[in-house]
Protein backbone atom coordinates (compact mmCIF):
# COMPACT_ATOMS: atom_id res chain seq x y z
CA UNK A 1 0.00 0.00 0.00
CA UNK A 2 2.81 2.37 0.96
CA UNK A 3 4.57 1.64 -2.32
CA UNK A 4 1.42 2.49 -4.26
CA UNK A 5 1.04 5.76 -2.38
CA UNK A 6 4.68 6.59 -3.09
CA UNK A 7 4.11 5.96 -6.79
CA UNK A 8 1.03 8.16 -6.79
CA UNK A 9 2.93 10.90 -4.95
CA UNK A 10 5.80 10.63 -7.42
CA UNK A 11 3.42 10.80 -10.36
CA UNK A 12 1.70 13.86 -8.90
CA UNK A 13 5.08 15.49 -8.29
CA UNK A 14 6.12 14.85 -11.89
CA UNK A 15 2.86 16.20 -13.16
CA UNK A 16 3.31 19.31 -11.04
CA UNK A 17 6.65 19.91 -12.72
CA UNK A 18 5.14 19.64 -16.18
CA UNK A 19 1.83 21.39 -15.78
CA UNK A 20 1.89 24.87 -14.35
CA UNK A 21 -0.11 25.59 -11.27
CA UNK A 22 -3.28 27.53 -11.79
CA UNK A 23 -3.09 30.52 -11.87
CA UNK A 24 0.38 30.94 -13.32
CA UNK A 25 2.45 33.23 -11.15
CA UNK A 26 3.48 36.37 -12.96
CA UNK A 27 6.98 35.94 -11.61
CA UNK A 28 7.38 33.00 -13.91
CA UNK A 29 6.89 35.33 -16.85
CA UNK A 30 6.99 32.85 -19.72
CA UNK A 31 4.69 29.94 -20.42
CA UNK A 32 5.70 27.44 -23.09
CA UNK A 33 3.08 25.59 -25.07
CA UNK A 34 4.20 22.68 -27.20
CA UNK A 35 2.42 22.55 -30.57
CA UNK A 36 3.87 19.44 -32.24
CA UNK A 37 3.50 19.37 -35.98
CA UNK A 38 2.00 22.83 -36.19
CA UNK A 39 1.42 23.02 -39.91
CA UNK A 40 1.30 26.65 -40.89
CA UNK A 41 1.06 30.31 -40.09
CA UNK A 42 -2.65 30.70 -39.55
CA UNK A 43 -2.73 28.05 -36.84
CA UNK A 44 -0.04 29.89 -34.90
CA UNK A 45 -1.23 33.40 -35.65
CA UNK A 46 -4.81 32.46 -34.78
CA UNK A 47 -3.68 31.19 -31.39
CA UNK A 48 -1.48 34.25 -31.01
CA UNK A 49 -4.43 36.53 -31.69
CA UNK A 50 -6.65 34.81 -29.14
CA UNK A 51 -3.88 34.82 -26.53
CA UNK A 52 -3.41 38.57 -26.98
CA UNK A 53 -7.06 38.99 -26.05
CA UNK A 54 -6.15 37.85 -22.52
CA UNK A 55 -5.41 40.77 -20.19
CA UNK A 56 -2.31 39.26 -18.65
CA UNK A 57 -0.50 38.42 -21.86
CA UNK A 58 2.40 40.68 -22.68
CA UNK A 59 3.80 38.97 -25.76
CA UNK A 60 3.30 35.80 -27.77
CA UNK A 61 6.21 34.34 -29.70
CA UNK A 62 5.84 31.46 -32.15
CA UNK A 63 9.07 29.45 -32.06
CA UNK A 64 8.70 27.47 -35.27
CA UNK A 65 11.88 25.44 -35.04
CA UNK A 66 10.91 24.05 -31.64
CA UNK A 67 7.20 23.77 -32.44
CA UNK A 68 6.37 25.95 -29.48
CA UNK A 69 4.38 29.03 -28.69
CA UNK A 70 5.88 31.08 -25.88
CA UNK A 71 3.64 33.33 -23.85
CA UNK A 72 5.20 36.17 -21.87
CA UNK A 73 3.08 37.28 -18.94
CA UNK A 74 2.83 40.91 -17.86
CA UNK A 75 4.35 41.86 -14.53
CA UNK A 76 1.82 41.59 -11.73
CA UNK A 77 -0.70 39.77 -13.92
CA UNK A 78 -1.82 36.17 -13.97
CA UNK A 79 -2.89 33.93 -16.79
CA UNK A 80 -4.38 30.56 -15.95
CA UNK A 81 -3.89 27.34 -17.87
CA UNK A 82 -7.62 27.32 -18.33
CA UNK A 83 -7.48 30.72 -20.03
CA UNK A 84 -4.76 29.44 -22.34
CA UNK A 85 -6.81 26.38 -23.22
CA UNK A 86 -9.84 28.58 -23.85
CA UNK A 87 -7.76 30.78 -26.15
CA UNK A 88 -6.67 27.72 -28.14
CA UNK A 89 -10.32 26.64 -28.29
CA UNK A 90 -11.46 30.04 -29.57
CA UNK A 91 -8.75 30.02 -32.23
CA UNK A 92 -10.19 26.70 -33.48
CA UNK A 93 -6.72 25.20 -33.31
CA UNK A 94 -7.36 21.67 -34.58
CA UNK A 95 -4.29 19.81 -33.31
CA UNK A 96 -2.92 18.54 -30.02
CA UNK A 97 -0.96 20.87 -27.82
CA UNK A 98 0.47 20.73 -24.34
CA UNK A 99 1.18 23.42 -21.81
CA UNK A 100 4.69 22.49 -20.76
CA UNK A 101 5.30 25.04 -18.07
CA UNK A 102 7.94 27.68 -17.72
Amino acid at each position, binding site marked *: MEAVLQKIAAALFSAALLVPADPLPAADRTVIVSVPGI*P*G*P*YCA*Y*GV*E*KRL*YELDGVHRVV*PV*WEKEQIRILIKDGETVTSEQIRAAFERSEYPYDYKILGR
Partner: protein
Amino acid sequence: MRAISLSVVVAIVVAGTTAYALVPWSPAREICSPIEPWGVAETDGARLNRPMGLAWAGGFLYVADTEHGEIKKLAENGRLVARWPGFERPVTVAVTGDTLYVADFLSDRITRLRADGTVITRWGRSGSGDGAFDAPSGIAVDRRGNVYVADFYNHRIQKFTADGKFLLQWGGKGRRGGRFRFPTEIAVNDQGEILVADAYNNRVQKFNRQGDYLAQWGGVGFGIAGRWPGWFRLAKSLTVDRRGDVYVADAFNRRIQKFTAAGELLGQSGTRASGDRQLRYPAGVAADPNGRVYVSDFFANRIWKIECGRSRKTGPADAARTGG
Protein backbone atom coordinates in the same frame (compact mmCIF):
# COMPACT_ATOMS: atom_id res chain seq x y z
CA MET B 1 -0.89 8.38 -80.36
CA ARG B 2 -0.07 10.88 -77.75
CA ALA B 3 3.47 10.81 -76.52
CA ILE B 4 4.08 11.66 -72.92
CA SER B 5 7.54 12.15 -71.55
CA LEU B 6 7.91 12.08 -67.83
CA SER B 7 10.57 14.70 -67.80
CA VAL B 8 12.37 16.90 -70.21
CA VAL B 9 15.57 18.84 -69.92
CA VAL B 10 15.16 22.51 -70.30
CA ALA B 11 17.50 25.44 -70.11
CA ILE B 12 16.47 28.13 -67.74
CA VAL B 13 18.06 31.51 -67.56
CA VAL B 14 17.75 33.13 -64.20
CA ALA B 15 19.47 36.31 -63.18
CA GLY B 16 22.14 35.99 -65.79
CA THR B 17 23.09 32.40 -65.04
CA THR B 18 22.02 29.36 -66.97
CA ALA B 19 20.89 26.27 -65.12
CA TYR B 20 19.67 22.94 -66.42
CA ALA B 21 16.93 21.21 -64.55
CA LEU B 22 14.20 18.65 -64.90
CA VAL B 23 10.73 19.87 -65.60
CA PRO B 24 8.21 17.91 -63.57
CA TRP B 25 5.68 16.08 -65.67
CA SER B 26 2.16 17.27 -65.31
CA PRO B 27 -0.99 15.85 -66.84
CA ALA B 28 -2.00 19.42 -67.48
CA ARG B 29 -1.26 21.03 -70.81
CA GLU B 30 1.09 23.68 -69.64
CA ILE B 31 4.62 23.23 -68.46
CA CYS B 32 5.88 25.27 -65.57
CA SER B 33 9.56 25.55 -64.90
CA PRO B 34 10.90 24.23 -61.61
CA ILE B 35 10.99 26.74 -58.89
CA GLU B 36 14.08 28.89 -58.82
CA PRO B 37 15.40 30.77 -55.83
CA TRP B 38 15.12 34.46 -56.31
CA GLY B 39 16.72 37.48 -54.76
CA VAL B 40 16.53 38.60 -51.15
CA ALA B 41 20.07 38.81 -49.98
CA GLU B 42 20.95 38.23 -46.36
CA THR B 43 22.59 41.63 -46.30
CA ASP B 44 21.28 45.20 -46.44
CA GLY B 45 18.26 44.43 -44.28
CA ALA B 46 16.47 42.43 -46.93
CA ARG B 47 16.37 39.21 -44.92
CA LEU B 48 12.85 37.89 -44.58
CA ASN B 49 11.21 36.47 -41.48
CA ARG B 50 8.18 34.37 -42.46
CA PRO B 51 7.08 36.05 -45.69
CA MET B 52 3.46 35.70 -46.69
CA GLY B 53 1.44 38.00 -48.98
CA LEU B 54 3.01 39.30 -52.19
CA ALA B 55 2.05 41.99 -54.67
CA TRP B 56 3.70 43.02 -57.93
CA ALA B 57 3.37 46.60 -59.14
CA GLY B 58 5.45 48.97 -61.24
CA GLY B 59 8.35 46.59 -61.60
CA PHE B 60 8.69 45.91 -57.89
CA LEU B 61 7.72 43.06 -55.61
CA TYR B 62 6.08 43.93 -52.29
CA VAL B 63 6.40 41.36 -49.52
CA ALA B 64 4.45 41.08 -46.28
CA ASP B 65 7.31 40.17 -43.95
CA THR B 66 5.09 39.01 -41.12
CA GLU B 67 7.46 38.42 -38.23
CA HIS B 68 9.50 41.52 -38.96
CA GLY B 69 6.19 43.37 -38.83
CA GLU B 70 6.82 45.24 -42.05
CA ILE B 71 6.27 45.44 -45.78
CA LYS B 72 9.35 45.24 -47.96
CA LYS B 73 9.72 46.54 -51.51
CA LEU B 74 12.19 44.60 -53.63
CA ALA B 75 13.62 45.37 -57.04
CA GLU B 76 13.55 42.83 -59.84
CA ASN B 77 16.99 41.59 -58.81
CA GLY B 78 15.84 41.04 -55.25
CA ARG B 79 17.52 44.12 -53.79
CA LEU B 80 15.73 45.92 -50.98
CA VAL B 81 14.35 49.25 -52.17
CA ALA B 82 12.10 50.34 -49.32
CA ARG B 83 10.42 49.10 -46.18
CA TRP B 84 7.40 50.09 -44.18
CA PRO B 85 7.67 48.90 -40.56
CA GLY B 86 5.33 49.31 -37.62
CA PHE B 87 2.77 46.60 -38.22
CA GLU B 88 1.90 43.84 -35.77
CA ARG B 89 1.31 40.89 -38.06
CA PRO B 90 1.04 42.12 -41.67
CA VAL B 91 -0.04 39.05 -43.61
CA THR B 92 -0.87 40.55 -46.97
CA VAL B 93 -0.40 43.64 -49.12
CA ALA B 94 -2.08 45.12 -52.20
CA VAL B 95 -0.59 47.90 -54.32
CA THR B 96 -2.16 50.32 -56.79
CA GLY B 97 -0.04 53.08 -58.25
CA ASP B 98 1.91 54.48 -55.33
CA THR B 99 -0.61 53.39 -52.72
CA LEU B 100 -0.25 50.35 -50.50
CA TYR B 101 -2.96 48.58 -48.55
CA VAL B 102 -1.84 46.37 -45.69
CA ALA B 103 -4.00 43.94 -43.73
CA ASP B 104 -2.86 43.38 -40.14
CA PHE B 105 -4.06 40.04 -38.81
CA LEU B 106 -3.58 40.91 -35.14
CA SER B 107 -4.75 44.50 -34.95
CA ASP B 108 -7.83 44.01 -37.14
CA ARG B 109 -6.95 47.05 -39.19
CA ILE B 110 -6.37 47.98 -42.79
CA THR B 111 -3.74 50.64 -43.43
CA ARG B 112 -3.64 52.66 -46.62
CA LEU B 113 -0.35 54.44 -47.10
CA ARG B 114 1.65 56.23 -49.74
CA ALA B 115 4.92 54.88 -51.03
CA ASP B 116 6.78 57.50 -48.98
CA GLY B 117 5.33 55.91 -45.84
CA THR B 118 2.71 58.54 -45.15
CA VAL B 119 -0.40 56.92 -43.72
CA ILE B 120 -3.45 58.09 -45.68
CA THR B 121 -6.02 56.32 -43.60
CA ARG B 122 -6.58 53.37 -41.29
CA TRP B 123 -9.81 51.59 -40.74
CA GLY B 124 -11.23 48.60 -38.95
CA ARG B 125 -11.89 47.46 -35.41
CA SER B 126 -12.23 44.07 -33.77
CA GLY B 127 -15.61 42.43 -34.10
CA SER B 128 -18.08 40.97 -36.52
CA GLY B 129 -20.21 43.96 -37.53
CA ASP B 130 -20.01 45.92 -40.76
CA GLY B 131 -16.49 47.29 -41.15
CA ALA B 132 -15.11 45.27 -38.23
CA PHE B 133 -12.67 42.39 -38.63
CA ASP B 134 -11.61 39.29 -36.84
CA ALA B 135 -8.20 38.73 -38.41
CA PRO B 136 -8.10 40.31 -41.89
CA SER B 137 -6.08 37.90 -43.98
CA GLY B 138 -6.38 38.92 -47.63
CA ILE B 139 -6.76 42.16 -49.55
CA ALA B 140 -7.28 43.26 -53.16
CA VAL B 141 -8.18 46.44 -55.00
CA ASP B 142 -10.26 46.59 -58.18
CA ARG B 143 -9.85 49.03 -61.08
CA ARG B 144 -12.41 51.38 -59.55
CA GLY B 145 -10.38 51.58 -56.36
CA ASN B 146 -12.73 49.48 -54.26
CA VAL B 147 -11.02 47.40 -51.61
CA TYR B 148 -11.94 43.80 -50.81
CA VAL B 149 -10.86 42.22 -47.53
CA ALA B 150 -10.94 38.54 -46.54
CA ASP B 151 -12.11 38.42 -42.94
CA PHE B 152 -10.62 35.15 -41.66
CA TYR B 153 -12.51 34.33 -38.47
CA ASN B 154 -15.73 35.97 -39.66
CA HIS B 155 -15.63 33.75 -42.76
CA ARG B 156 -16.62 36.56 -45.08
CA ILE B 157 -15.52 39.13 -47.63
CA GLN B 158 -16.06 42.83 -47.03
CA LYS B 159 -15.98 45.54 -49.68
CA PHE B 160 -14.94 49.13 -48.99
CA THR B 161 -14.27 52.33 -50.84
CA ALA B 162 -10.62 53.34 -51.20
CA ASP B 163 -10.84 55.39 -48.01
CA GLY B 164 -12.44 52.63 -45.99
CA LYS B 165 -16.16 53.32 -46.17
CA PHE B 166 -18.03 50.05 -45.80
CA LEU B 167 -20.03 49.06 -48.89
CA LEU B 168 -21.14 45.47 -48.51
CA GLN B 169 -20.20 42.04 -47.22
CA TRP B 170 -20.94 38.44 -48.11
CA GLY B 171 -20.19 34.93 -46.98
CA GLY B 172 -20.56 33.29 -43.59
CA LYS B 173 -19.20 29.97 -42.44
CA GLY B 174 -20.12 26.95 -44.52
CA ARG B 175 -19.33 24.71 -47.43
CA ARG B 176 -22.01 25.72 -49.90
CA GLY B 177 -21.13 28.00 -52.78
CA GLY B 178 -20.81 31.54 -51.50
CA ARG B 179 -19.81 30.51 -48.01
CA PHE B 180 -16.32 30.18 -46.61
CA ARG B 181 -14.15 28.38 -44.12
CA PHE B 182 -11.35 30.77 -43.22
CA PRO B 183 -10.81 32.71 -46.47
CA THR B 184 -7.17 33.77 -46.75
CA GLU B 185 -6.65 35.79 -49.94
CA ILE B 186 -8.43 37.69 -52.69
CA ALA B 187 -7.64 38.70 -56.24
CA VAL B 188 -9.58 40.73 -58.79
CA ASN B 189 -9.39 39.96 -62.50
CA ASP B 190 -9.79 42.34 -65.45
CA GLN B 191 -13.51 41.61 -65.61
CA GLY B 192 -13.88 42.84 -62.07
CA GLU B 193 -14.61 39.36 -60.79
CA ILE B 194 -13.49 38.56 -57.27
CA LEU B 195 -11.53 35.36 -56.69
CA VAL B 196 -11.24 34.08 -53.15
CA ALA B 197 -8.84 31.50 -51.73
CA ASP B 198 -11.34 29.66 -49.55
CA ALA B 199 -8.48 28.04 -47.69
CA TYR B 200 -10.03 25.43 -45.45
CA ASN B 201 -12.74 24.53 -47.94
CA ASN B 202 -9.84 23.65 -50.25
CA ARG B 203 -11.25 25.57 -53.17
CA VAL B 204 -11.27 28.81 -55.12
CA GLN B 205 -14.54 30.70 -55.41
CA LYS B 206 -15.45 33.41 -57.90
CA PHE B 207 -17.93 36.27 -57.38
CA ASN B 208 -19.11 39.36 -59.18
CA ARG B 209 -18.56 42.85 -57.79
CA GLN B 210 -21.71 42.62 -55.70
CA GLY B 211 -20.63 39.39 -54.09
CA ASP B 212 -22.96 37.14 -56.06
CA TYR B 213 -21.57 33.65 -56.33
CA LEU B 214 -20.42 32.67 -59.82
CA ALA B 215 -18.28 29.53 -59.69
CA GLN B 216 -15.87 27.41 -57.70
CA TRP B 217 -13.16 24.83 -58.33
CA GLY B 218 -10.90 22.49 -56.40
CA GLY B 219 -11.47 18.74 -56.33
CA VAL B 220 -14.98 17.46 -55.88
CA GLY B 221 -16.05 20.17 -53.49
CA PHE B 222 -17.57 19.64 -50.03
CA GLY B 223 -14.33 20.90 -48.54
CA ILE B 224 -12.54 17.65 -49.36
CA ALA B 225 -8.78 18.04 -49.74
CA GLY B 226 -6.64 16.05 -52.16
CA ARG B 227 -3.26 15.74 -53.80
CA TRP B 228 -4.46 15.17 -57.35
CA PRO B 229 -3.97 17.83 -60.02
CA GLY B 230 -6.62 20.49 -59.64
CA TRP B 231 -7.28 19.65 -56.01
CA PHE B 232 -6.01 21.57 -53.02
CA ARG B 233 -4.79 20.94 -49.54
CA LEU B 234 -5.28 24.42 -48.15
CA ALA B 235 -5.73 26.91 -50.96
CA LYS B 236 -3.70 29.57 -49.21
CA SER B 237 -3.20 32.36 -51.72
CA LEU B 238 -3.90 33.30 -55.32
CA THR B 239 -3.19 35.86 -57.98
CA VAL B 240 -4.29 36.66 -61.51
CA ASP B 241 -1.86 37.35 -64.35
CA ARG B 242 -2.36 39.74 -67.26
CA ARG B 243 -4.02 37.00 -69.33
CA GLY B 244 -6.53 36.31 -66.60
CA ASP B 245 -5.00 32.97 -65.62
CA VAL B 246 -5.11 32.18 -61.93
CA TYR B 247 -2.21 30.91 -59.82
CA VAL B 248 -3.03 29.25 -56.52
CA ALA B 249 -0.59 28.55 -53.68
CA ASP B 250 -1.59 25.04 -52.64
CA ALA B 251 0.13 25.11 -49.26
CA PHE B 252 0.10 21.57 -47.90
CA ASN B 253 0.65 20.11 -51.37
CA ARG B 254 3.71 22.38 -51.58
CA ARG B 255 2.95 23.49 -55.09
CA ILE B 256 1.57 26.25 -57.27
CA GLN B 257 -1.27 25.35 -59.61
CA LYS B 258 -2.27 27.41 -62.60
CA PHE B 259 -5.82 27.62 -63.94
CA THR B 260 -7.75 29.46 -66.60
CA ALA B 261 -10.20 32.09 -65.42
CA ALA B 262 -12.86 29.37 -65.66
CA GLY B 263 -10.95 27.01 -63.40
CA GLU B 264 -9.48 24.66 -66.00
CA LEU B 265 -6.13 23.35 -64.81
CA LEU B 266 -3.21 24.52 -66.94
CA GLY B 267 -0.16 23.47 -65.02
CA GLN B 268 1.59 23.05 -61.74
CA SER B 269 5.01 23.48 -60.28
CA GLY B 270 6.84 22.56 -57.16
CA THR B 271 5.66 19.01 -56.54
CA ARG B 272 8.53 16.94 -57.87
CA ALA B 273 11.41 19.04 -56.71
CA SER B 274 13.56 17.86 -53.87
CA GLY B 275 15.88 19.26 -51.26
CA ASP B 276 16.44 22.96 -51.55
CA ARG B 277 14.19 23.14 -54.59
CA GLN B 278 11.14 21.86 -52.70
CA LEU B 279 8.61 24.45 -51.69
CA ARG B 280 7.99 24.07 -47.98
CA TYR B 281 4.94 26.26 -47.51
CA PRO B 282 3.86 28.49 -50.39
CA ALA B 283 2.10 31.32 -48.58
CA GLY B 284 1.85 34.08 -51.16
CA VAL B 285 1.90 34.41 -54.92
CA ALA B 286 2.19 37.33 -57.35
CA ALA B 287 2.53 37.56 -61.13
CA ASP B 288 4.47 40.14 -63.11
CA PRO B 289 3.47 41.31 -66.61
CA ASN B 290 6.10 39.10 -68.25
CA GLY B 291 4.56 35.85 -67.11
CA ARG B 292 6.84 35.29 -64.19
CA VAL B 293 5.32 34.25 -60.90
CA TYR B 294 6.80 34.92 -57.49
CA VAL B 295 6.08 32.66 -54.54
CA SER B 296 6.78 33.35 -50.89
CA ASP B 297 7.89 30.31 -48.95
CA PHE B 298 6.89 30.89 -45.35
CA PHE B 299 9.10 28.28 -43.71
CA ALA B 300 12.08 28.70 -46.03
CA ASN B 301 12.09 32.48 -45.54
CA ARG B 302 12.53 33.14 -49.20
CA ILE B 303 10.97 34.02 -52.52
CA TRP B 304 10.88 31.67 -55.49
CA LYS B 305 10.31 32.36 -59.16
CA ILE B 306 8.32 30.24 -61.58
CA GLU B 307 7.77 30.63 -65.29
CA CYS B 308 4.91 28.90 -67.04
CA GLY B 309 4.73 28.77 -70.82
CA ARG B 310 2.10 27.60 -73.22
CA SER B 311 3.18 24.13 -74.28
CA ARG B 312 0.94 21.55 -75.87
CA LYS B 313 2.03 18.17 -77.22
CA THR B 314 5.60 19.29 -77.04
CA GLY B 315 8.91 17.57 -77.31
CA PRO B 316 12.04 18.67 -75.52
CA ALA B 317 12.85 21.32 -78.09
CA ASP B 318 9.50 23.02 -77.67
CA ALA B 319 9.74 22.68 -73.94
CA ALA B 320 13.13 24.37 -74.01
CA ARG B 321 11.56 27.39 -75.69
CA THR B 322 8.82 27.62 -73.10
CA GLY B 323 11.28 27.34 -70.28
CA GLY B 324 13.62 29.99 -71.57
